[in-house]
């Protein structure tokens, strides 16, 4: 990988005595869909937190487009062009769906749309892409879980990211919703947005990701193309346990 768009080196996060992420090196190629998998507590969401500026790394660096963004604030990193969705959805509950997305359009990566009309038009475009256009004027709190997940994506897309970090957007969705969301992920990639997704649904990961990185207990244990990674002995034992354990 000659020119990664996003690169973490030696990323470490310690919470007191617990090491959630332990010296992870990760490089994301421009235009790929990269899956980040691992058992619960492997440090996937923490790694996203370190990249997106929600948390400060204890050690290590994050480089985006060749520039260090290590330790910068979350809003700064969003403006730079890295957006993140929240595993536990965090809508602005009292706002309408379109107003939620307008916050992303008003702020976020440059160039920003002009004025309220511009922000609204941009927000409506993302709602269209995410299949929420008919719910634009509903209060955000009235959406179903699937709707909330798509709102998270629409809001992040409205910030015009170059890299989009999706944190378990499929969790809790039924099969129909899962397929719709995977189609959406592909559409977003086709627009030229690089995607990194944390996901537990391995079948979905296999279907949509071109590369997979596996974290176990805060460490990267293997990375590569889906078929190789998912049949790797270390990955299988991390998920299912070894014969010795069973």
């Amino acid at each position, binding site marked *: 990988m000659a020119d990664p768009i996003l690169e973490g080196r030696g990323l470490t996060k310690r919470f007191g005595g617990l090491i959630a992420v332990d010296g992870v090196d990760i490089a994301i190629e421009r235009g790929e869909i990269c899956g980040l998998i691992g058992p619960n507590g492997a440090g996937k969401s923490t790694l996203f937190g370190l990249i997106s500026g929600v948390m400060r790394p204890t050690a290590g660096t994050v480089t985006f487009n060749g520039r260090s963004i290590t330790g910068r*604030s979350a809003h700064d990193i969003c403006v730079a062009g890295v957006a993140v969705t929240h595993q536990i959805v965090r809508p602005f509950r009292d706002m309408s769906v379109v107003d939620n997305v307008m916050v992303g359009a008003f702020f976020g990566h440059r160039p920003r749309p002009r004025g309220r009309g511009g922000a609204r038009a941009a927000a409506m475009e993302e709602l269209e892409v995410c299949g929420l256009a008919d719910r634009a004027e509903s209060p955000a709190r009235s959406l179903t879980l699937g709707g909330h997940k798509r709102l998270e994506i629409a809001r992040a897309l409205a910030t015009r990211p170059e890299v989009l970090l999706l944190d378990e957007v499929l969790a809790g969705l039924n099969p129909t919703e899962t397929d719709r969301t995977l189609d959406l992920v592909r559409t977003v990639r086709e627009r030229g947005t690089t995607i990194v997704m944390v996901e537990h649904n391995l079948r979905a990961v296999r279907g949509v990701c071109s590369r997979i990185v596996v974290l176990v207990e805060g460490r990267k244990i293997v990375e590569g193309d889906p078929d190789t990674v998912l049949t790797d002995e270390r990955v299988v034992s991390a998920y299912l346990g070894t014969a010795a354990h069973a």
Partner: protein
Amino acid sequence: MARNGAFAAIAIAALVAVPFVAPHAEYALDVLFLIFLYGAMATAWNLVGGFAGQVSFGHAAFLGIGAYATAIMTQNGISLWISVPVSALLAGAYSLVIGIPAFRLRGPYFSIATIGIGEATRLIARNWSSLTGGVSGLTLSSAPPLLLQYFAALALLVAAVGLAAWIRASRFGYALAAVRQDTDAAETLGVATTVAKTQALFLSACILGVAGSVYALHYLFVSPDSVFGFSTSIALVIMPIIGGLGTVTGPLIGAVIYTFIREQLAATLANVDLLAFGVLLIAIVVFEPRGILGIADRIRRMRKPPAVTVPDG
């Protein structure tokens, strides 16, 4: 929106006409003056406490700084054209000094810190006698004509409500609403939340600074316990809550109710007004946290058939 604008224009025109139609109704003019002043102050508080959701119990500090600044400058013969804007900016500057550390705290912790800031400011005013006259305060000799005061307070109210209406529909307003509902989510969407909160506090403090000028020139007396008093900070919290927190006109509605209760009850029996505010506040928090405007909204909904809800697809 156009209807709101037309309604506001009619209301302003009527209020401008009052002193000419009824020039001798001094009591009524005085009550209206107080409503304008309190309305402007409550609207200013609401920019921070309502729009941005950062509930401050120390806003009297900004009123006091404006009042003292104007009183001191007026005693030294400085023109109001200079002293009023300077008072606003001093209050604004003070808001930056306290806002930058205080906004490192969130939610109730921020609110508690503002109580401390408000009280500390009052104690500084009490003890810095060479500047503030200490406990006995400062007295001014002559007030501007009542008519001028009336229009100054009206202009301040119109400016404050106009600013609030503009902010609410603007990019800045979206930032504040996002901060109020989920500060962390706002951050990840590119909103510089601390900057937005600080800007809101600065604007709020500047308006309170001007309100302090108007206050000093009306009462001709400022003392630490009057302008910096905790009861003033509480009044600024109560009014927007009564009317409707985070709305454009709610604080003004709250100011009308607050002023009437205070004028009517405080005159009949000492401290009954405080009891009334306590009961009103509890009733609102328990039954309709959206205040009077929330009640109005409920009535409107009852008269209209319920909207058909489309299930989320």
